[in-house]
């Protein structure tokens, strides 16, 4: 499919879309004007698609420096009467939370929708938190789509709901919904064009401090108004078509949401279980009356939801408040696991504990197959061949050795990005990690609380996201550590989005490039060096100098990620077999995936080698040569 069809496709047409693509179609149908994000898997593709389509769809789109900024861009647009959208992964909500919490108080005029993508089982995240807690915390409605069609429909509906109650609305997806592909039928597109020349329509902000400035004198009333809205919205969720029932079960019922609903539905259907199902697509404000009605003639109910037992607790409240005699099976009584992603097998196993419907039929394999299954090598993601981070990690480890330091004398404070993969041997370059930008703050803390040397690593995008304020902290409080900004000219881990350090913006237009070097200098750092990570000698020398300092030293390693589109590939290295004495240094210490040892012989995979020259500098015997 051509992505442009998300804009040009007519109502009634069908496409096989990724959940994240369906979200974009929902935005287009809703006629939004403004969208902002900071990339984070599993939500990233929404931004990638928007960045291609924004102009065709008359949408202003930006990659903001972080989620809080993106939240503020969307909130001000919405308060000015435009439909706005911001999206992030679950942990991004933590960054945005400070401003998000108050948007619920100040409200909106144009519809504002926040999509937050949870990541049960942590496919690409540092924790498993549940966005639904934020809906409760801030008192804003939340919708939980379970498939691609619903992603589109709910995103669109969320704007109407938001406008009706003048409150932002959250759409919570999970990895399996964001990265599910399914058939989506398009609906009507609401026109967002205007007589204005801009890609988007200009709104207007009507000043009214009593509504929009939450000083204590006003904020108290705002909170009262917020609760009024939530009570009214509960009537809407009780009647919502997204909260619907299937089946005829009299004794057993099942309440589920999001992808957990899919697993439950398949298990009930394919095992012909007599269970009636209530699906909650609109789960906060909790549709109490709807749930009470559903429970009223049941004996037992299963609650199937991923991550936290949120619906389960609300169901228990319903049961308690009406004194119903219904037994609840969920996470709290151990019927289902309390963490990690579900699947049909897990749900079937849980239901089976109560219903005993399935026999255990395991297959017998030959011993040789079992042995083979145990003996296969692991295949974790690795830094790409030619990745500049590899060269830096190699270089810093040499510098540490040359300075006579032991590995345990140097703490590597890592951050969120490809370079976190430096945790793996042979680099062993990640000892502590909390969140985006944490490596710099962690550097401050380790520097005052230990006598160890500290090496903090942060990417360019992450530096702009939240590395600058802790760097200011480091300078002012005289903390001593070496901060390396791995400037690979892109936001790589999420698939290559731009950031303020490169001269292009999210819509593909020219944009001023913000200098990391000047920022570090402006923060007050005295030692700021820009180096080429593929010049091993320079890397080692710079680290030696930096480690000897007593302040916050900044090294900027500047070389592009090899996956940036449009880069010309350098020719692969030449292997001079007669010079190789099989010392294995290149394989064991550099660990470039293009170099392997097969049947006792070094082999360069030319289709992978990026010609970065790192291995040439590592080989002491001249067995590797520049391919140019």
């Amino acid at each position, binding site marked *: *499919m051509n992505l442009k069809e998300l804009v040009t496709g007519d109502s009634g047409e*069908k496409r*096989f879309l*990724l959940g994240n693509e369906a979200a974009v179609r929902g935005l287009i149908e809703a006629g939004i004007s403004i969208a902002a994000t900071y990339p984070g*898997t599993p939500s*990233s*593709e929404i931004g990638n698609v928007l960045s291609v389509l924004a102009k065709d769809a008359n949408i202003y789109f930006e990659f903001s420096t972080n989620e809080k900024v993106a939240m503020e861009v969307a909130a001000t647009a919405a308060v000015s009467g435009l439909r706005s959208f911001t999206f992030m992964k679950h942990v991004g909500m933590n960054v945005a939370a400070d401003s998000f919490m108050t948007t619920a108080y100040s409200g909106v005029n144009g519809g504002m929708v926040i999509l937050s993508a949870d990541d049960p089982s942590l*496919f*690409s995240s540092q924790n498993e938190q549940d966005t639904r807690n934020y809906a409760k915390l801030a008192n804003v409605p939340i919708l939980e789509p*379970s498939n691609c069609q619903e992603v589109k429909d709910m995103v669109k509906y969320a704007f109407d709901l938001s406008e009706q109650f003048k409150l932002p609305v959250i759409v919570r997806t999970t990895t*399996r919904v964001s*990265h*599910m*592909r*399914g*058939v989506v039928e398009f609906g009507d597109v609401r026109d967002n064009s205007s007589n204005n020349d801009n890609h988007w329509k200009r709104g207007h902000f009507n000043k009214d401090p009593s509504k929009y400035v939450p000083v204590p004198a006003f904020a108290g009333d705002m909170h009262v108004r917020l609760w009024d809205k939530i009570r009214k919205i509960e009537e809407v969720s009780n009647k919502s078509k997204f909260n619907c029932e299937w089946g005829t079960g009299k004794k057993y019922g099942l309440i589920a949401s999001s*992808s957990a*609903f*899919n*697993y439950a*539905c*398949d298990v009930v*259907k394919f095992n012909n279980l007599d269970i009636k199902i209530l699906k909650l697509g609109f789960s906060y404000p909790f549709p109490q009356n709807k749930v009470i009605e559903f429970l009223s003639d049941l004996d037992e109910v299963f609650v199937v939801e991923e991550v936290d037992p949120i619906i389960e607790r609300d169901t228990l409240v319903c049961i308690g408040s009406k004194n119903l005699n219904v037994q609840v099976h969920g996470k709290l009584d151990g019927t289902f696991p309390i963490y990690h992603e579900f*699947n*049909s*097998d897990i749900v*079937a196993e849980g239901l089976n504990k109560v219903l005993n419907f399935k026999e255990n039929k395991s*297959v017998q*394999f*030959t011993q040789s*197959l079992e042995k*083979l*299954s145990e*003996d*296969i*090598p*692991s*295949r974790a*993601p*690795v*830094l*790409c*061949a030619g*990745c500049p981070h590899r060269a830096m990690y190699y270089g810093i480890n040499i510098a540490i050795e040359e300075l006579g330091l032991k590995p345990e004398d140097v703490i590597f404070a890592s951050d969120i990005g*490809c370079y976190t*993969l430096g945790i*793996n041997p042979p680099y062993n370059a990640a000892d502590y990690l909390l969140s985006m930008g944490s490596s710099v703050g962690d550097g401050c803390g380790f520097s005052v609380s230990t006598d160890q040397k500290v090496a903090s690593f942060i990417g360019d995008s992450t530096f702009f996201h939240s590395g600058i304020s802790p760097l200011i902290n480091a300078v002012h409080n005289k903390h001593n550590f070496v901060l390396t900004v791995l400037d690979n000219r892109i936001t*790589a*881990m*999420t*698939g*290559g989005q731009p950031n303020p350090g490169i001269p292009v913006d999210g819509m593909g237009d020219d944009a001023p490039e913000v200098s990391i070097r000047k920022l570090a200098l402006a923060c007050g750092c005295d030692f700021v060096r820009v180096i080429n990570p593929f010049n091993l000698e320079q890397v080692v020398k710079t680290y030696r100098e930096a480690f000897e300092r007593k302040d916050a030293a900044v090294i900027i390693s500047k070389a592009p990620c090899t*996956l940036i589109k449009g880069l010309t590939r350098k020719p692969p290295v030449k292997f001079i077999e007669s010079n190789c004495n099989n010392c294995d240094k290149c*394989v064991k210490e550099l*660990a*470039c*995936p293009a170099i*392997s040892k*097969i049947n006792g012989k070094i082999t360069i995979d030319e289709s*992978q080698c990026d010609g970065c020259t790192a291995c040439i500098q590592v080989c002491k015997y001249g067995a590797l040569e520049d391919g140019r």
Partner: protein
Amino acid sequence: MDNHYNIYICGVGGQGIIKTSTIIGEAAMNQGLDVVMSEIHGMSQRGGSVSTELKIGGYNSSIIPKQGADMLLSFEPVETIRGLDKVNSETKIVYNTHPIIPSSTDKQYPNVDSITKTLKENFKYVLPIDGTQLAMDAGSVLALNMVLLGAVTADDKFPLTKESVIEAMKNNLKPKFHEMNLKAIESGYNSIKS
């Protein structure tokens, strides 16, 4: 329960697995079938294990239950082994015999012939093909995914026609490469049919 068909596709990042799966999914949609698919995205680095799951015919969830696949299509020998918990005794196992040696050196890469031998001892339908060679014969190593796509369409139980798969391929890949990809699909198809 006619027309239910689950395909588990696995291999190594960068082999074109997601593209192949999307093509099958679009072909199913165009034939009016219900289809859902699950893909693993993540860190963009290459070299990790990648898998997709395609379910045709009235499913809500896009994850194939244990032993629930009708077809295991693997782009790489060792990844075939990793995908075996989706397989039952009736599952067709089609896999590319060309290994990609991972850079992790925790275990020795097993001998491919012994993988084939062991699989054949345990399963009825084991169909190894040298997809990488067939792709090179078709014009480029990058056509490997189309060779394997052709191989899937050759299964008698596969609910989609070769024509609709080819149509979907054309919709998803650059016209410049259509001819080569057609050749690749045919050679994959023939390698299973013959």
